[in-house]
């Protein structure tokens, strides 16, 4: 029986038969549709995924004319530091050089200026230096250049911040105190986002990329939505990108609402609607990779969840397609053969607007 070389979600090479691959596509798609409560893919779509997975070329790419835009999180800092996300640790690469390399050699369509400590809280502390840097770097770059950071509300909890850790309080069955801590931290984060955005506006910054949003759960998502909404009100022309941290918003608080809706448990097709309401221009959807499942399983799951997100969105959707998301294996060096296949599947099946 003919078999195909493919990968597992942790990047290992495996050989699978046609039947095994198709079975995993069906199972992954069903799991995604059930988790996100979205319509299933058609048989034709699953067969197309199968063809892409089984393509025997080393590199699989999109047809000319179907290309999509590339935006970037974490700016160019991964050249000169390894922040735990497979950075290159090139010691002499400055951020300006990095931006220009992304622009002129790596053919990215937009970039962000990112501070090495890539969270709103530390960025606030260096914002005057950063705005000055932006002002000068923007004179040399041609592509859309925003600033960016993660809301990372974890930094507002003990021991880093003034509020008690909600999950610790939960374990002590102090549920109300836990919720109060989340709410207080969320208000603080929204204020800090407001301050950062107010300062970047002063130097004509094109906008802000809110990256890895809701990493601390539902309260962080609401805090960020409110921060983006305020930013949109203060600057109607700002470019706002919002990339999520995971496929679903974890309900650490459970009752946080935005626009009258409880945000906990929301999947990309629901998240994007709130982002639209908040004034976001580009939404970064996430579907997590399961390292114990095959690429076929993960790719089909990613496609079914992302497809509904793109379908309901009135704004462009750039799918997160780095290590461990969007069908890409979770490993330090995501295999090139899978990267192209995963992107082709999301472009053809889910109709994404960018990566």
């Amino acid at each position: 029986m003919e078999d195909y070389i493919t990968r597992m979600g942790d990047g290992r090479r495996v050989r699978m038969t046609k039947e095994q691959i198709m079975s995993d596509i069906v199972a992954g798609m069903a799991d995604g549709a059930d988790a996100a409560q979205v319509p299933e893919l058609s048989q034709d779509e699953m067969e197309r995924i199968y063809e892409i997975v089984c393509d025997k070329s080393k590199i699989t790419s999109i047809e000319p004319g179907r290309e999509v835009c590339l935006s970037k999180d974490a700016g160019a800092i991964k050249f000169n530091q390894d922040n735990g996300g497979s950075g290159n640790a090139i010691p002499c690469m400055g951020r300006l050089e990095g931006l220009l390399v992304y622009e002129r050699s790596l053919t990215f369509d937009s970039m962000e200026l990112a501070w090495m400590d890539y969270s709103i809280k530390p960025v606030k502390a260096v914002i005057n230096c950063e705005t000055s840097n932006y002002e000068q770097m923007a004179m040399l770059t041609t592509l859309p250049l925003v600033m960016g950071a993660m809301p990372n509300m974890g930094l507002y909890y003990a021991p880093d911040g003034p509020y008690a850790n909600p999950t610790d309080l939960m374990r002590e069955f102090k549920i109300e105190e836990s919720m109060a801590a989340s709410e207080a931290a969320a208000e603080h984060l929204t204020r800090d986002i407001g301050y950062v955005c107010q300062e970047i506006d002063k130097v004509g910054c094109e906008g802000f990329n809110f990256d890895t949003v809701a990493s601390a759960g539902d309260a962080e998502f609401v805090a960020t939505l409110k921060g983006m909404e305020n930013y949109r009100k203060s600057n109607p022309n700002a470019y706002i990108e919002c990339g999520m941290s995971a496929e679903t918003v974890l309900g650490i608080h459970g009752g946080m609402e935005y626009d009258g809706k409880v945000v906990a448990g929301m999947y990309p097709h629901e998240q994007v609607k709130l982002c639209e309401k908040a004034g976001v221009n580009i939404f970064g959807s996430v579907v997590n990779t399961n390292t114990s499942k095959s690429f076929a399983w993960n790719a089909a799951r990613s496609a079914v969840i992302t497809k509904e997100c793109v379908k309901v969105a009135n704004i462009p959707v750039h799918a997160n397609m780095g290590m461990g998301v969007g069908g890409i294996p979770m490993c330090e060096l995501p295999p090139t053969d899978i990267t192209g296949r995963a992107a082709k599947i999301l472009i053809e099946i889910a109709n994404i607007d960018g990566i």
Partner: protein
Amino acid sequence: MAVAHGLCSGMGGMRTTGDLVCRMQFAKNMKIDAAKKYVADKLEIDPFQLTEENFIRDIRDKEGLGVVTGQPNSPKGLPAKMNIEKVLGITISNCEHYRNQLKK
């Protein structure tokens, strides 16, 4: 990762018209096909030609939109963005910021 995406799926950035298309996604919330059509219409070309490197290079050079190679007297950065404003019919906030810094 970045190389693989650029190679397999990306529009090509300044090498082609990716930065222009992406700018319209940001500026007007345009989905990919609408953004491509908008840029193609402004450049008076077919959307399929948006990723045709050498064809686009000539257009970018002629319009002063910035090219990726070291061409003397071909604008990059701020002056290129000011030309992009004109071609795409939009205002870019940092161009506006630098214009406001000029003394009268």
